């Protein structure tokens, strides 16, 4: 289905020339709406690649799978660091799992 914008957390990244979510979406699906917040043009056109979710500095975006495929309420939340990413999942019963994965070799990061 796409990404849900938490309008309380989204700052609109007013100080940058282009917010990272808008800048990097491979499908050009994100834009800034009239209230100065991020908005997705069409939920159904999202590939669920999670690029915008990973890169938003204020964790204002969350991937929501299309309801035709997945039950409500589970979550998958990434946190990006210099050379690693931490993923937290929460299933529909509230069970959590955490994964920490290296993304770049130390000396290159």
């Amino acid at each position, binding site marked *: *289905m796409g990404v849900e914008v938490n309008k309380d957390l989204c700052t609109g990244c007013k100080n940058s020339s282009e917010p990272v979510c808008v*800048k*990097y*979406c*491979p*499908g*050009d699906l994100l834009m800034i709406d009239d209230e100065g917040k991020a908005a997705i*043009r069409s*939920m*159904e*056109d*999202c*590939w*669920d*690649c*999670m*690029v915008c979710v990973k890169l938003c500095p204020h964790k204002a975006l969350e*991937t929501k*799978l*299309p*309801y*035709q*495929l*997945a*039950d*409500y*309420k*589970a*979550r*998958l939340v*990434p946190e990006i660091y210099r050379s690693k*990413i931490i*993923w937290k*999942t*929460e*299933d*529909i*019963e509230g069970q959590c*799992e955490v*994964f920490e*994965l*290296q*993304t*770049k*070799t130390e*000396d*290159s*990061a």
Partner: protein
Amino acid sequence: MGISETKIESIETDLLIIGGGTSGCLAAVKAREKAPDLDVLILEKAHIERSGCLAAGMNAINAYINPGETPESFVEYVRKDALGLIREDLVLSMAQRLNEVVQDVESWGLPIKKDEDGNYVSRGRWNIKINGEALKPIIASRVKEAGVNVLNRVVVTNYLMSEDNEVIGAIGFGVRDGKCYVVRAGATIIATGGTAGLYKPNNDGSAHHKIWYSPFNTGGGYAMGIRAGAEMTSFEMRFIALRIKDIVAPTGTLALGFGATQVNSLGERFMQDKFADMGAEGAPTPIRVYGPTREVKEGRGPVFMDTTHLTDEEVKELKASYLNMYPDLILYWAANNFDPGKEPIEIEGTEPYLVGGHAQAGYWINTRRETTLKGLYAAGDVAGGAPYKFVSGCWAEGVIAAENAVEYIKNKQESKSEQSDLTKKLWDEYNRIYAPLEREKGVKPREMEERLQKVMDEYAGGVSRYYEMNERELKLALKNIKRLQEQIEFLKADNLHELMNCHEVVDRIDVAEVLVNHLLYRRETRWPAYQTRTDYPGRDDQEWLKFVNSRREQDGVKMLEKSYEKLVK
């Protein structure tokens, strides 16, 4: 906004690369390394940091010559996997460069798993495991360091041609600024990837982009070549992927990384039972899609990959592996309370795509990766004749294309005269680009896309037809595609994003026309599922061990045949 408000931006460069995906970026870096004084420009419709197939990351490099193997043994394997027909010269020259490009990318910062002896950890015969979540950003940084010029958010729509049919650049428009970009170049590399969105997808409506291949790779590169009269090959070898049902995530990780086997609803290991002579679970890739599709068609579905032997520890490892490449699968499992250690994973075939790096649809090229249009080179999923490229083969091709394009620029005589009617041609293209913005009423790109996908699904062997087709159906497909071509003049866009969507569907219609012509022409069934002709069910090596090629001319798509040459015993 209207035409009058748009501006033209003219640019000159030595080497133009269209598409800043994985092969385009490698080509750009290589060109700058080989010729540091060369001006290299990438035009990318998204942003090279996260564009193309690598947006979400990768968890393996699927084409690598592991210890004990050789480029020749790779060719032998790929030939068998593609049921006897490949361009061995292309596959061999690519294979010879695989390990070198992988080491290059590793040195830029890609973490590759190693064993105690310092060897890469293999995952199957030709694969190695990586932590590739940041693979595209790592490559993009290297592009910046190498001094490549990049224009992001420019959608390229056609080539610029010289008087004697040489490609001398390209034209496109900015999705952000609305400008028309006219780029003149000494040589051009096309690297726009394959085509998704030709067929009705497995999921529709709110999930229509929940597909495996990037829905934003829409066949621009193929379509530009078709319109310019480039020779194309093997479009009839479509690519259909065997994927995890609903979420359409790759299954290679399950089979190669975690020893999962296919079972039907009766618990039968049908690949072992029915395809033992072709290699059972190791049968050629098309057969591994055909097998389960047939089980479902004949009432023994659903089909699964059995992962119930996995321990909790292994399940965790499996999930980590997917987070590096297809993270939404883990959300899908969490949302549906699914534990692959307890239940087998349901699988299905995807809708057909055209992907030259998995199957072999694409530009007809020589070993220098030169297309049949002078000055134009092709690399990656858009280049034909060499299946089994995957990410590393795309890198190798990008590098080879760059080396030869650089040579071409160096040896180039005085720049050729431009077409005398170039200005008129430019204005025609300019009008073609922006016309959908001018229309008050008409057809939205999404509507036209749905129509195309329905036609292709029903008459050209889509999911709903178990990938099967016959001559009568294909002719109906062609008739419908012709009608769609006439409807293009009604396409309407309200903004620049929709203008991009308009050109995406126009490109796919041009690609579909050529695809259906190829499917009609090959009167045998060489690659079951990828290409199943119910009216010609058998494989016929006597007559058809050859390439089907095509070139679009004034009066339609002209079909050509090219012979197969065996290089490796």
